[in-house]
C-alpha cells in the first residue's frame, strides 16, 4: 500500500517537473522568436503593407482564360494553348532541370556512399578517421547549393554543368550525413561475424552492412532527388541552366502571363516527380533486397 502511494507521489513529482520544464522551454522559445523578429524586422505592420502588394502581383499573374475558347487553337486569345504558347520549349527546360537534379543526385549519392562508412562511429577504424570524415561531410553540406552555383557559374560559365556540380556537391554532404546515421543504426551482429571470418574492413562493409542499409539509402536518395528538383529550379536564377533561368528572365521582364504559365508547369512537374518518387520510396522500404 505504501509502495503504491510512493509511486503515485514520484509520478506526480515527475509530472510537475516535466510541466515546469515545458513551460520554461515555451517561454524561452517565445522570447527567441521575438528577438529574431526584431532583428529581422519582420513586424506585423511591414507584413500588413506587403500583403496587398502581393495580392496585386498575384492578380496580374492570373492567366487570361475564357471558358468559351478554353480548348481553341494557340492563335486565339483566352485559350489554354495561347497561355502555354511556348509549352514545348518550357517542357524541354523543365526536363533539363529534372536531369540536372537527377545527375547531381546520382553523382552526389555515389560519393556519399563512399564517404559515409568511415564517417559512422560504429565502423570507423579509429576516432580520428571518424572525425575527419564527419567534418568533411559537414564542409560539403554547410555551403548551400546556390552559393556553389554562383562560384561555379563564374568558373564554368552559364549552363547546366555548373548546376549539376553545385547541387552534387551539396548532396554529398547532405546524403553522406544521413547515410552515416543509417549505418550507425545497423545491427552489428553480422559485422562481428564477418570480421571473425578473417574478412577485411571493406569486405565487412560490403557484406555485413550494405544489405541492411541499402533500402534506407535508396529512400533517402529519392527524397533528396525531390529536394534537388526544387533546388535545380532556383539555381537557374543564377545562370545554372534549366527552367529557372527562363523563369528569371520572364520575371525580370514582367511577362505576367508567361510567369504564371511556367510556374504552373513547374508545380505540375514537381508534383508528378514527388508522387512517383514517394511511390518508389515506399516500395524500396517494404520490398526485400
Amino acid at each position, binding site marked *: 500500500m505504501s509502495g503504491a502511494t510512493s509511486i503515485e507521489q514520484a509520478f506526480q513529482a515527475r509530472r510537475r517537473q516535466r510541466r515546469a520544464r515545458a513551460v520554461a522551454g515555451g517561454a524561452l522559445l517565445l522570447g527567441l522568436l521575438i528577438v529574431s523578429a526584431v532583428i529581422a524586422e519582420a513586424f506585423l505592420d511591414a507584413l500588413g503593407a506587403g500583403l496587398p502588394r502581393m495580392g496585386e502581383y498575384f492578380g496580374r499573374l492570373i492567366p487570361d482564360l475564357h471558358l468559351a475558347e478554353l480548348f481553341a487553337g494557340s492563335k486565339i486569345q483566352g485559350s489554354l494553348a495561347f497561355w502555354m504558347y511556348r509549352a514545348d520549349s518550357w517542357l524541354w527546360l523543365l526536363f533539363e532541370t529534372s536531369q540536372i537534379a537527377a545527375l547531381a543526385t546520382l553523382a552526389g549519392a555515389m560519393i556519399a556512399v563512399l564517404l559515409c562508412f568511415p564517417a559512422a562511429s560504429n565502423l570507423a577504424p579509429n576516432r580520428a578517421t571518424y572525425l575527419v570524415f564527419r567534418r568533411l561531410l559537414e564542409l560539403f553540406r554547410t555551403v548551400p547549393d546556390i552559393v556553389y552555383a554562383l562560384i561555379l557559374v563564374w568558373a564554368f560559365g552559364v549552363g547546366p554543368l555548373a548546376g549539376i556540380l553545385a547541387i552534387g556537391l551539396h548532396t554529398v554532404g547532405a546524403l553522406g550525413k544521413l547515410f552515416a546515421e543509417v549505418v550507425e543504426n545497423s545491427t552489428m551482429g553480422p559485422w562481428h561475424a564477418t570480421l*571473425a*571470418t578473417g*574478412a577485411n574492413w571493406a569486405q565487412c562493409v560490403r557484406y555485413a552492412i550494405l544489405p541492411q542499409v541499402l533500402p534506407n539509402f535508396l529512400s533517402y536518395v529519392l527524397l533528396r532527388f525531390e529536394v534537388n528538383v526544387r533546388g535545380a529550379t532556383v539555381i537557374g536564377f543564377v545562370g545554372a541552366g534549366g527552367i529557372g533561368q527562363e523563369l528569371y528572365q520572364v520575371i525580370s521582364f514582367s511577362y505576367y502571363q508567361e510567369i504564371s504559365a511556367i510556374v504552373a508547369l513547374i508545380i505540375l512537374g514537381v508534383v508528378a516527380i514527388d508522387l512517383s518518387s514517394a511511390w518508389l520510396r515506399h516500395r524500396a522500404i517494404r520490398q526485400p533486397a
Partner: protein
Amino acid sequence: MSIARESLRIHGLSCRFGAVTAVDEIDLDVPAGQMLAVIGRSGAGKSTLLRMINRLQEPSTGSIAYGPTDVTALRGRALRDWRRDCAMIFQQFNLIGRADVLTNVLIGRLNHRPWLPSLLGLFTEAERAMAVQALDRFGLLDIALQRADTLSGGQQQRVALCRALLQEPRMLLADEPIASLDPHNARLVMDALRQINREDGLTILANLHHLDTARAYCDRVVALDRGRIVFDDIPDRLTPDVIMAIYNITEQEFHAADTPVAEPMRQIQ
C-alpha cells in the same frame, strides 16, 4: 583434411574492462582435436575468453599461442588469416538476414578471395560447390536460395556452421551456440558440432550453459567463476557435489540462474 592442427596454449590471460576483471590470469592448454566445454554462470567471462582467442577482444595481459604462432602479436593480414583459421559461431547466429543462405555461407570464403572480386560478389563455381556440399551435409540443401531471415533458429545456426566450415578453419569457437534454441534444434546443432569435431578433427571450444550438454558432448569441461578457472577435468568428474563445492548452489539453481524464465510469457504476447 590436410591442414596441420596444433595445440592452443593460453598463459596468464586477463581482460579488464575498467574496474571489472572479466578474465583473470587464465592458463589453459587445449590439445589438437579436443572438444572442450567452457561452463560458468552469466558474466563469468566465457564470451570474453573466446573473443580474445580470435582477437575480437584485445587481451589486457597474457599470451595465446597456436603451435609456433604467437596469436597475441598478430597484426593486419596475419591477424585476418588467424581469424580465418579460428572460426566462430554465436548465440544470435549473426547471419545477414536480407541475403540468401548460399551467400551467407560464402562469407566464409572472403579471406581466401582477392578482395576486389569479392567486393563485386564474384565467388568461383568451386566455392559455390563447396558451399552446396556443406549445406547438404547438414540437411540444408533445399533452403540454399531462401533468405536467411526466413529460417528457424536451428537452421540459422547450422547455416552459420557451414559459413564457419567454408573458412577451412583449424579450430572452432562456439559462444553459447544452443542457448537460443529449443531442445530438438539444440540437439541437431550439438550433433553437427560433434560430427565436425570427430570427422574433420577440428578443435572445438564451446561455451555451454547446460551442464548435461557439456557432459554428453565434450571431452573435457572447464568451469569459470568470476574470470578464473575453478574446475578443469573430464565431464564424469563434474558431479552435483562438485557444482555445490565450486558455485555453492545446486545444479538446478545453476541452470535457473541463466534460463530465460520469461520465455513462455514472451510467447503469449
